[in-house]
């Protein structure tokens, strides 16, 4: 690691200190500590989803005479939602590369694309939910639908929070610039967004494709 560009260099310079004994090395840089802490938060967040997945798996057959998943879900609709979220994950990755290069216009561009794709996903999900409720298949209809709305709704709520966070981060880049504090937060946001996409893989496999 001879040449490292931009904001990363101070931290990675420490990695070379192989000759310094552990006891003299001092605390890890804030970026590493913040990233690791946020990673632990994400894993505990995924535990919430694990509990909701477990509830869904147990209750998915309890339709109380109401519609089953196979009758309610449209595969084409879900495929478009999945495509939006996957594409937004990649553009978010490009955006975080732009943040590392402290490239302002490129950051705005990729993060705006991420926002639009995330908002499209939410809009599709909202239209699915409202049409289900309108057709009488609301969360109060059966245990299956309660578990469905709890699981998919929690994921949607996370995406909503992620979009709000993204707007705040863009405002911080606009007002504060690429300070270490701001790039650190941006970096945590990217982790959050990628983790939501991982949860969605579970959702579309178990809930939508596994519907029977």
């Amino acid at each position, binding site marked *: *690691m001879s*040449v*490292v*560009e931009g904001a*990363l260099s101070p*931290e*990675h310079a*420490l*990695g070379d*200190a*192989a000759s*310094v004994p*552990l006891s003299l*090395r001092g605390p*890890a*840089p804030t*970026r*590493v500590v*913040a*990233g*690791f802490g*946020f*990673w*632990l938060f994400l*894993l*505990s967040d*995924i*535990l919430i989803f*694990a*509990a909701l*997945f*477990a*509830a869904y*798996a*147990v209750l998915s057959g309890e339709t109380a005479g109401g519609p089953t998943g196979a009758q309610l879900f449209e*595969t084409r609709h879900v*495929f478009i939602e*999945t*495509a939006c979220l*996957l594409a937004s*994950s*990649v553009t978010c*990755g*490009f955006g*975080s*590369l732009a943040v590392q290069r402290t490239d302002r216009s490129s950051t705005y561009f990729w993060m705006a694309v991420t926002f639009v794709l995330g908002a499209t996903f939410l809009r599709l999900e909202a239209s699915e939910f409202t049409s289900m409720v309108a057709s009488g298949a609301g969360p109060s209809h059966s245990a299956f639908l309660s578990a469905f709305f709890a699981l998919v709704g929690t994921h949607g709520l996370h995406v909503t929070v992620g979009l709000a966070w993204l707007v705040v981060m863009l405002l911080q880049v606009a007002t504060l610039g690429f300070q270490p504090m701001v790039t650190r937060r941006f*970096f945590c946001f*990217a*982790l959050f967004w*990628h*983790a939501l*996409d*991982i949860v969605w*893989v*579970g959702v*579309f*496999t*178990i809930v939508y*494709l*596994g519907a029977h």
Partner: protein
Amino acid sequence: MEAPSQAQGSAPGVEVQTHGSRRTYLIGLAYAVVLTVASFWAASTDLVYAPGVPILLGVFAIAQMGVHLVFFLHISSAPDQANNFLALAFGIFVVALIVFGSLIIMGNLNHGMMPMERLMQMQP
């Protein structure tokens, strides 16, 4: 001396390389697209033996989660990632415990429950 950088560690998602990072995301995207399309195909096709479809879907999903972890979150088993990797392993363990534990316990309770007709007959 064992892995000096291990004590400092590095955060998940931090990638040191300055070249090819964008390529990493694109490779990840290609794998993810193939796996997603394969999942949707497997769910709708008649070519696969029907009882095997859920297993196939599970394999595709786990593979895709792995792709996301490696190419998007940049988790690896490198020495400076030991903390992240251990946390991930513990997370997977607890998730498996919650999901499969619930399924086994609820399935067992369901199995041991008296049939509804008998229960109705016992009502005074």
